[in-house]
């Protein structure tokens, strides 16, 4: 093939196939450039950054909605490789694109309600926010180990800056520094892991992983004694360390409480939800791409059980550590850790079922495990953002974020209290709130995986036990809000029923309830996204 032909083909591939399907990401890019340009020409008095950001996020949401409509209407799932196979465009990608754009829109709305950042810093802050989201979208669609690394970094670097955004606050700088140091370490380890995996398998293309893995396993003895497989396992473990950092799984969770405490509540909410969603998308893709490698089943089962062990440790530690916290953001940081543990349960169940050779067709069970994860993430968006929004709104009036600041709040801001109640009970996992349905789906998947490996029953037992543990600290906050009387000298929190703030948090709470009483709104979508990924494999 001639060089010029190659170039022509590349241009054709990029402009005709890839770019149209890359529209959502392009929306974000354009918005970033626009915001910076507006400030360059001093037009930000006329057009504040938050307006541009809202419009940009809304455009991204519309775009992903159109992609969703187009893709989910088709009878058989399709996947298209973009940019010569670096990215992949399928139902799963689109689900996460829509998820992240919706979340971006909600976060921008929240920040413009709470006034963080101020007008001066607006363009900086929103560029970072949009940049991080862009990285997370790439995480959800990456199809190559190289892209995996770039996407994770793309999402991480703006996040570091956002954590330290409250300039002049010691805790913010401390949190950001911890986050950076940890992040850099994790990225290094992950990159090393990628090189090991790519080196053993001879490819960085994730769609070829299972095929190559099978070839490597067939070469050697097949068991874990095989040096090549052992190298691969080591590489996999290192990649997992990088992802575990993003997911704040134990023992890579240390940054999380400090970063959350230092960051503003809005940023903490963003980090706890969006970066988790991106990392889960990536983890699922990685696991699915290795599935079905003949000869490596023992390795993969061990990987699945290992994920289960991490999940047990993560949720137990998160829930126990949350109990002693006085700072609400710190408390929610530990709750975030615990919830990452719950969600890893689903991935663990999925991997164990995929690597079970004795079982027949597992695609339905695997899809329902993934459906549980996707549904949980979707509910988690609303319930966690709701909780952080309430903290942010209270902080705007009391300048504090401790449990003491919400003591007896029911007498002054009943709307905020009711929203907090809905979000917290949903986080515990009680019906009729959405968190229950998500938890039920995940528990059911884990129980179902018990027939593949009996360790799953242990995992389930710990999941249930943790649900009971977690009640303690959530209800401690609610008890302070509802049952105690407000201090005489506490600053008032005058949030009226008829105000934008109330409307915003009530919308979030409304979605939490809607997802609990009418799960089919989302469960069918989540199911078809999951099924598409499983069937395409």
């Amino acid at each position: 093939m001639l060089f010029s032909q190659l170039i022509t083909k590349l241009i054709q591939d990029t402009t005709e196939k890839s770019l149209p399907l890359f529209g959502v990401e392009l929306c974000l890019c354009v918005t970033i450039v626009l915001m910076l340009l507006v400030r360059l020409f001093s037009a930000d008095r006329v057009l504040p950054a938050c307006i541009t950001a809202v419009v940009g996020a809304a455009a991204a949401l519309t775009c992903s909605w159109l992609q969703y409509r187009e893709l989910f209407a088709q009878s058989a799932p399709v996947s298209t490789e973009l940019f010569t196979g670096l990215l992949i465009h399928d139902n799963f990608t689109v689900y996460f694109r829509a998820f992240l754009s919706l979340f971006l829109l909600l976060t921008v709305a929240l920040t413009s309600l709470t006034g963080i950042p101020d007008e001066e810093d607006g363009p900086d802050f929103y560029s970072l926010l949009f940049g991080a989201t862009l990285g997370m979208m790439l995480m959800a669609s990456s199809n190559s180990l190289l892209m995996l690394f770039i996407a994770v970094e793309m999402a991480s670097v703006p996040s570091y800056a956002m954590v330290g955004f409250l300039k002049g606050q010691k805790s913010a700088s401390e949190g950001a520094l911890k986050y950076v140091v940890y992040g850099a370490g994790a990225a290094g380890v992950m990159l090393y892991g990628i090189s090991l995996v790519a080196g053993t398998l001879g490819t960085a293309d994730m769609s070829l992983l299972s095929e190559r893995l099978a070839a490597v396993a067939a070469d050697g003895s097949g068991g874990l004694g095989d040096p090549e497989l052992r190298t691969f396992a080591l590489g996999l473990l290192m990649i997992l360390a990088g992802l575990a950092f993003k997911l704040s799984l134990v023992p890579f969770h240390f940054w999380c409480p400090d970063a959350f405490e230092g960051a503003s509540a809005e940023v903490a909410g963003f980090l706890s939800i969006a970066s988790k969603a991106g990392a889960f998308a990536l983890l699922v893709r990685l696991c699915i791409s290795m599935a079905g490698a003949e000869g490596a089943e023992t390795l993969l089962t061990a990987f699945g059980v290992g994920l289960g062990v991490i999940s047990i440790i993560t949720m137990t530690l998160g829930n126990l550590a949350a109990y002693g916290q006085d700072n609400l953001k710190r408390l929610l940081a530990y709750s975030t850790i615990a919830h990452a543990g719950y969600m890893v349960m689903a991935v663990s169940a999925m991997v164990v079922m995929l690597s079970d050779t004795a079982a027949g067709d597992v695609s339905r069970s695997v899809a329902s495990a993934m459906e549980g994860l996707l549904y949980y993430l979707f509910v988690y968006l609303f319930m966690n953002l709701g909780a952080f929004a309430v903290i942010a709104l209270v902080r705007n009036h009391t300048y504090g974020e401790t449990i003491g600041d919400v003591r007896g709040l029911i007498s002054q801001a009943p709307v905020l209290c009711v929203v907090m109640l809905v979000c917290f009970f949903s986080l515990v996992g009680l019906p009729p709130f959405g968190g229950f349905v998500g938890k039920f789906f995940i528990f059911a998947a884990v129980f179902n995986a018990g027939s593949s490996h009996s360790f799953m029953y242990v995992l389930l037992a710990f999941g249930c036990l943790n649900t009971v543990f977690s009640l303690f600290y959530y209800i401690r906050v609610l008890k302070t809000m509802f049952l105690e009387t407000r201090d005489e000298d506490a600053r008032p929190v005058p949030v009226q029923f008829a105000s934008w703030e109330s409307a915003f948090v009530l919308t979030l709470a409304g979605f939490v309830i809607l997802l609990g009483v009418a799960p089919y709104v989302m469960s069918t979508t989540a199911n078809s996204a999951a099924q598409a990924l499983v069937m395409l494999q």
Partner: protein
Amino acid sequence: MNPFLLLSLLIFLPLIGALLLLIFDEKNTEAMRFWSLGVTLVTFIMSVVLWGQYDPAQGMLLADVADWVPSWNVYYRLGVDGISLPLVVLTGLVSSLAMAASWSITKHVRGYLILFLMLEAGMMGVFLSLDFFLFYVFWEVMLLPMYFLIGVWGGPRREYAAIKFFLYTLAGSVLMLIAMLMFYFVSGGTEDSFNLVALAQRASEGTLMSPSMQITAFILLFIGFAIKLPAFPVHTWLPDAHVEAPTPISMILAGVLLKMGGYGIIRIAFPLCPYGAQYCAWAMVAIGVFSIIYGAFAALAQTDFKRLVAYSSVSHMGYVLLGLAIWKINETTGETLNSDYWQMGLNGAMFQMIAHGVSSTGMFFMVGVIYDRVHHRDLNKFGGLMGLMPLYSGMAAGLFFAGLGLPGLCGFIGEVFVVISTWSFSPPLAILAASGVILTAGYILWALQRVYLGAEYRGPHAEDITPSNGRENAVAAILMVLAVVLGVYPAVLFDVMEPSIRAMAEASAEGCQNAIFQLDQLQASIQR
């Protein structure tokens, strides 16, 4: 009326009523109270209409089924039979009476009423749903209002009591969740996998679960329900919750919430894992008898009037567990022995649930009436109320006698049925259970003596003791009349309950026999 509409209205009418409370002016507490009373009364009337529509011979009255979560085969499936119908009517009645007793609540009235009506919706839902998932959702939905009703409007140690109640129930329901998943996957995740009627049918044919799995599932379910019942040793939440809750909520707790434990055992645990239930029969009987004796002794030791009534609930609910569990089989053939006695025990247990619903609701109300006046509950600082409040004291004595199990009042029938049928299971245990009646008489008579008899009142706030008002008299009189009617003519209930209970018992016996047959075959194949 169309059963689907009627059953759905029973659940959702209180919820709609709660939502409409939001449009009232917050200052106008009187109007809100009357509105809520109206809502509970209409719900009660509808439950009576349902009683009128129900024909005991037809078995289960099923409503149309609606989709809820199709991908998980969860349906909105309601229905009622002779086991749940009396409990539905009891819920309607106790809710109305408790609402009438709620005039003493003066703090955050609107919040109280909204939570109260939500609680009623949850309770109705538990008794009416025939889909396991739906049942579980309603079971949990009640937790939230109950936590706040105890935690905000309760007594001095309300926060501790509320969290304890919440935690115990949540722990139990998590176990129930695991059992639910077991049933779902064992039955293949088909559209009948949460259908309690279909699951019971399959269990009775012996095609649902293996015998060893049945034991696991039954134990999980039983712990969950025993917490609610409550049976020793998981009863410790009850004295705290009952004592700290405000009077109307204590009435609901004792009158309805405890019955959910018994109902769950008879509706879910027994029919779905008959072999497991039979396997655990001895343990359950032992727990039941121990609860009777333990509760009675604990009640004897109390000086707090309300705590005494709370422990009497532990003792009385022990009879329910005992009546359910006296199921004896021939170990080799798997045939149920003395099937008539077991059914009598089941009938007695069901009757005891309703009777306890009437008598304990009344006892808690009576304690509340005097507490509203003198603001203390110390048994040693009462006395002489008979002279000061004659009508109140008379009715209180009547309701306490109903709790005691005096012949002619409702408590007698249930206890006697259970004790007689226990004799066929194990005469020594029957004697022990019967001796519980003596202890019951002991603590109730002693309490009556200390509170109502005597020359004069010896406690604080003597000047506030006024005769009971019309509202209080009406509530007490309704309960008193019911106690007498049920005691004199128990067939009102038995006619409705008996066919359903017989069907349940026969299906369970068959299921157990099938399971034992399977076990025999398994053993034979191993030996070969």
